[in-house]
């Protein structure tokens, strides 16, 4: 199996899975923070919520980058190695 086949078959699934996973945390937290901010005046609580939102967003993006790096690296390693038990089809994502 050529590298194009690996990347065409599996990569979009991996990227989709991780990107949607990151969006499932970033969007609800951001929207919740924005809605709460509508009802609060400027103060410590609002600043804390904004800080938490920032941490969640950064953590999600950092985790997304690390996870994609890990998935790419694993895929590339297995492609070079020839797959598990010598079969390149062993690691195809379901």
């Amino acid at each position, binding site marked *: 199996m050529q590298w194009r086949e690996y990347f065409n078959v599996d990569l979009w*699934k991996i990227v989709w*899975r*991780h990107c*949607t*996973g*990151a969006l*499932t*945390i*970033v969007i*609800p*937290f951001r929207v919740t923070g924005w809605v709460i901010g509508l009802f609060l005046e400027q103060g*410590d609580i609002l*600043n*804390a919520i904004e*800080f*938490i*939102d*920032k*941490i*969640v967003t*950064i*953590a*999600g993006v*950092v*985790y997304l980058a690390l*996870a994609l790096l890990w998935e790419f690296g694993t895929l590339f390693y297995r492609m070079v190695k020839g797959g598990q038990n010598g079969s390149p089809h062993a690691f195809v*994502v*379901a």
Partner: protein
Amino acid sequence: MARHMPSWLRDTLRVWLQYWIIGLSSIPAGIAGFLLTQRGMTQRNAVIVSLLIAASLSLILWGVVRKKLFVSPQKVKHTTQENSAAADIQIQLQPFRLAGGISYVFVVALGASSPCPNVKVSISQPNEQTKTQTAPAYDYVYAYGNVVSEV
């Protein structure tokens, strides 16, 4: 030998669960970071500390969730009755460990963020006794460790 068949939905839910754990771990980490910024730490350092706390908490939480939800049939099959009793005790202890870890983070963060008591300490000499009488309200003046006057 029983093994899980590859499942797109299960793997996707597992990945999403990891992201949710990251998000939930970021809440106490964000609170701790905010308290550190209130204490005087710079925003950048507080973000770094918060991310480290979030990563640590999410690793702990993911370990708990993986043991609770993703037990492989192969592992269950080969577990003896004695080992399963020990595993039950381990699983029962997990929430306490988790609660202890979270409590520790909160106690450290709150302790770091508690304001210093605004108390003026002055050692008054016998000839300065009249000075202490003119202290403003709520200004406690101590002399040799004892309250002299409260105006």
